[in-house]
């Protein structure tokens, strides 16, 4: 599964005023893998993700995607690169003035000039992939939180991207819905064979969806390794993060051996 580094981030630095959010991030995401960036809320995971797709400009460092430094790309070149990416935002970020179908179809209309019955067919196909067949006529305001995330995923995969970025995909969802989203991330990765980067503070989601995990701590990557290595490492930042996670969930869930491969919860 693991191959060449598709995304190579070196010494990434970003500050907002006096607040240094990223303080020299080094991270390599290999072709075809699902890399999970784990860390507590507010540690800068979403900021890192927005840098990967060029929504933010770094103060220092480099982000190389397939050998091209994206911080130096012209607007047109960046657009071409973004067409190969799909991103699921934390709050879904659906266009609330459009129906579900129009949301999913927008990239197809804008980039492939798809129209009419072909557009309807493709939209329905993407909605079916996320288990929301027959919802194209609904408005975002009529959807639950989990459904919004799934529509956001359908929109993100509309152009069959090579890379899918997930920003806190399970945040704000109940445990059952969070589990469905985790399974959807895995199944989408298998169907599209896309490289995925998932940022989350949810340890269970990280272990379920990821091939490799990087832990962000104090603006840097404190640990990088496989999900197996995450459970066995003596890395202090990892142990502290896991211990905090355990304290947050005082026996409220039994470990489900069929899903929780690492007995972390």
């Amino acid at each position, binding site marked *: 599964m693991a191959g060449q580094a598709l995304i190579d981030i070196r010494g990434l630095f970003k500050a907002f005023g006096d607040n240094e959010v990223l303080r020299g991030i080094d991270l390599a995401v290999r072709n075809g893998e699902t890399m999970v960036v784990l860390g507590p809320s507010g540690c800068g995971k979403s900021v890192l993700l*927005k840098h990967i797709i060029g*929504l933010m400009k770094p103060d220092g460092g480099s982000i190389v995607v397939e050998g091209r430094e994206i911080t130096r790309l012209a*607007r047109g070149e960046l657009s071409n690169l*973004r067409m190969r990416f799909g991103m699921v*935002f934390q709050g879904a*970020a659906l266009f609330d003035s459009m129906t579900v179908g129009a949301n999913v179809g927008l*990239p197809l209309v804008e980039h492939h000039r798809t129209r009419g019955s072909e557009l309807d067919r493709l939209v329905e196909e993407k909605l079916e992939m996320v288990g929301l067949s027959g919802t194209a006529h609904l408005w975002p305001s009529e959807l639950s939180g989990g459904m919004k995330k799934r529509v956001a995923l359908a929109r993100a995969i509309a152009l069959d991207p090579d890379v899918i970025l997930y920003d806190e995909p399970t945040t704000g969802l109940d445990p059952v819905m969070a589990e469905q989203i985790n399974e959807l991330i895995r199944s989408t990765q298998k169907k599209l064979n896309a490289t995925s980067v998932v940022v989350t503070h949810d340890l269970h989601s990280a272990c379920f969806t990821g091939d490799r995990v990087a832990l962000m701590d104090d603006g840097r990557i404190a640990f990088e390794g496989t999900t197996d290595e995450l459970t066995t490492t003596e890395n202090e930042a990892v142990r502290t993060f896991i211990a905090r996670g355990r304290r947050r969930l005082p026996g409220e869930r039994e470990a489900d051996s069929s899903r929780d491969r690492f007995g972390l919860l």
Partner: protein
Amino acid sequence: MTSSSVTARRNHGGFGTGLFRTLGGNALELVTEVGAAGLLLWRSSLALRKFGRSVPLVVEQMRRIGVDSLPLVIITAVFTGAVTAVQAAYQLKEFVPKIYLGVAIYKSVTIELGPVLTALVVGGRVSASIAAELGTMRVTEQIDAMDAMAIDPVRYLVMPRIVAALIMLPIVTIFADVLAISGGFVVANLSLDVSVKTFVEGMKLYFFPHDVLGGLLKAFVFGGIIAVMGCTAGLRTFGGAVGVGRAATRAVVASCVLILISDYVLATLLFKVIFGEA
């Protein structure tokens, strides 16, 4: 000196300093906003290269900016014309024959009142609406989502609004001019006993096409100001619901101030320099 008088003097100084700080801050904010608007206008003009793909978006915005504003414009225009007739009759009754009532109403409406009042009422409605819409999209990451999909928000959201406003403001102003002159005529006819013939002959007496053209050129510029200031405030929104409210206020204030300033500049440029009317 008693402690209360010291406190009073401090408060007085604090109020003065605070007032200047607020005024200075607002002025600086307006200048920053105008600078950002200039950049946005430039990026929108570059986006015109893909205008063909944006025609449906422009048509939709023309409906929202122009057609949906018509009820407000109709009320404003009719009563503006009526008040102009009453005021003109009152000011001129001792000195000027009634035949000049028509020309007074026509000139004041087409050159000044039609374009400026229409721009102010449409601007208040439209710039706040645009700023709130784009501001909400900004704070809910919808604009980031658009960017992430390689859809340029300037091409998709901003350019259609500016083009639609540039087209619709002159059209709405023509409606306003006709309605205001009609309103003025009704009042002149019913209350001041001015006949149709007298009113129309008065209008013909000093009719110059460049009066109408100048008014419509003003409306064209005002349309651009309304849309670009609304879009600028919307795209620069931060800070959730409070930020969206602030953006809408900033858009309306900036639009109105710039409409009034540019009205003076355009009046000087058009009627003194270009059309040679002092």
